[in-house]
């Protein structure tokens, strides 16, 4: 019976968790924490339910000695098989292909089919009769004509390809080191085999297999030496070269985007409308505001929303700072915080700590948008 008492309960709880996650998601306007948590709770429950089904609540009676006799451990030995291993490798190749190139993917799929076929035939053959020898014969008769040539060709191809790839990718000095390393490895295993003569040939085979796999893996890895397209943009943008708060510059600096700001912590939204109006929306104030209050010394996040057609940025000016450069020389610089330029519909937040009250400054604190006349919000810092 698949559906045991506890698996029933566990499946039920899994379904309940899903429902709870849904309710949470709806009730909290799409807040993710609770919903993801519930989703995983559901996964865990359903997983345990499946295990409970599988083990029939683990309820094998302690007096059931027949279970011992029929347990797998006491079954007699049958032939060995490398097919699971082969399946693993081909699965690996398939996934590599999926990510990198269709060619490798196709090879992987072919391998996978071949290996699974072999595994299944072996499995079938083992049950063909009670005689192991007969079973092996049946299997070989079925499969050998197919598998030997294919396997040989494939092995050769993989080795050649991988080596060439590794060579191509390595610089000269590194190449030398790699080869020294490989030499040492081969020497080591050779010595090992020599010392321990009875070492099982299959173990040796396995070690070589692993080396082969490693080689193939490295080859694939170097062949795929590239990045996903989306990521290259950040590098291309080179923010430092463009930083600044003026209209011409595009980015503020690296920091601006690094300080990830939570939407839930937004002090005010500053919105630039299509017709060049700038207004603020802040929690607790009704409607559109032309002035906002920023708490002194408090990290405050202001979100800029650009609805105009141009790429724009928001600049918050909050006074000046005078640096003493020594020898009575002073440098005055404006205190500013700005977002990067964003396209229409884009948003960008800036987190700022204003240390001085606005009353301490001769010039009023403002939020402006460079290049848009009259777009100004007064900022008051108590």
């Amino acid at each position: 019976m698949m559906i045991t008492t506890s698996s029933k309960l566990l499946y039920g709880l899994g379904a309940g968790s899903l429902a709870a996650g849904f309710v949470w998601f709806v009730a909290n306007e799409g807040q993710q924490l609770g919903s993801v948590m519930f989703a995983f709770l559901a996964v865990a429950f359903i997983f345990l339910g499946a295990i409970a089904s599988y083990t029939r609540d683990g309820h094998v009676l302690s007096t059931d000695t027949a279970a011992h006799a029929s347990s797998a451990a006491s079954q007699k030995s049958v032939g060995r098989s490398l097919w699971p291993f082969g399946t693993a490798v081909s699965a690996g190749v398939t996934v590599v292909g999926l990510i990198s190139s269709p060619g490798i993917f196709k090879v992987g799929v072919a391998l996978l089919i071949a290996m699974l076929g072999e595994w299944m035939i072996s499995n079938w053959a083992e049950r063909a009769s009670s005689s192991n020898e007969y079973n092996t014969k049946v299997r070989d008769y079925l499969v050998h004509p197919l598998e030997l040539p294919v396997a040989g060709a494939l092995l050769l191809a993989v080795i050649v390809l991988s080596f060439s790839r590794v060579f191509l990718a390595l610089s000269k000095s590194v190449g030398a080191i790699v080869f020294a390393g490989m030499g040492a490895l081969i020497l080591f295993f050779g010595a090992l085999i020599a010392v321990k003569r009875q070492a099982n040939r299959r173990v040796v085979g396995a070690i070589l297999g692993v080396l082969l796999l490693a080689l193939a893996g490295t080859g694939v890895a170097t062949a795929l030496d590239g990045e996903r397209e989306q990521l290259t943009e950040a590098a291309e943008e080179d923010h430092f070269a463009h930083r600044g708060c003026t209209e011409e510059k595009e980015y503020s600096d690296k920091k601006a985007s690094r300080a990830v700001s939570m939407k839930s912590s937004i002090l005010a939204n500053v919105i630039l409308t299509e017709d060049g109006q700038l207004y603020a929306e802040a929690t607790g104030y009704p409607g559109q505001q032309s002035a906002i209050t920023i708490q002194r010394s408090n990290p405050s996040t202001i979100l800029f929303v650009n609805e105009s057609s141009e790429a724009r940025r928001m600049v918050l000016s909050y006074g000046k700072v005078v640096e003493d450069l020594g020898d009575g020389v002073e440098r005055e610089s404006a205190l500013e915080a700005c977002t990067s330029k964003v396209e229409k519909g884009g948003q960008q937040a800036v987190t700022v700590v204003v240390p001085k009250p606005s009353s301490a400054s001769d010039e009023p604190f403002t939020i402006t948008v460079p290049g848009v006349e009259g777009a100004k919000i007064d900022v008051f810092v108590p």
Partner: protein
Amino acid sequence: MLTLPPAPQPAPKRQVFVGTALVSAAATMLVGGMLAIWSQFRADAPFRESPRRGPIKDWMPKDIVVPEVAANMMLIAFFVVCVMAQWAVWSAKRNDRQHAGMALGMTLLMGLATLNAQLFIWSQMGVDVRGGAFNSMFYAITGVMTFLVIAGLVYTAVATFRYLGRGNSDVPTLSAHALYWYFLTAAFSAVWFVVYVQK
């Protein structure tokens, strides 16, 4: 062949198997909790319109480059580990000691490969943990994953030692061990998708 008349063994009750399943369930919550926090952080990050690629979440600092190849290789390695672990079970059930031992060795090796890939990713990214929410979260989530993988490796080592030291009868431990690696693969697939693909 037996040297003594064996006392009847306790019937196979799959304690280790069920226990491992429960560990996996608990660890699912661990990884799930981390991913929940991750998605919460990410969902709360403001986005901006990129001129070329549509909306971009300003969640991941732009100077961070994720070594995707290594991450993908890591995922592949996880899948391979699974098959290896299952192979060990398969062989052990058939009293095939050599293959089972080999499969366990391979499991360990590929498990180490995943660990190696993780170390590689860390060193390549060179993320400063103090740099911000993404950085902290990245280390937290990959750190938890690594911890679970190390636990898996310890499990494999234990299973190997026990297998080598014992007769052929440790199939329950081996299948439980395989279950744990299945769980790790599933968990890493989730982490891989959320952290390395979606970012």
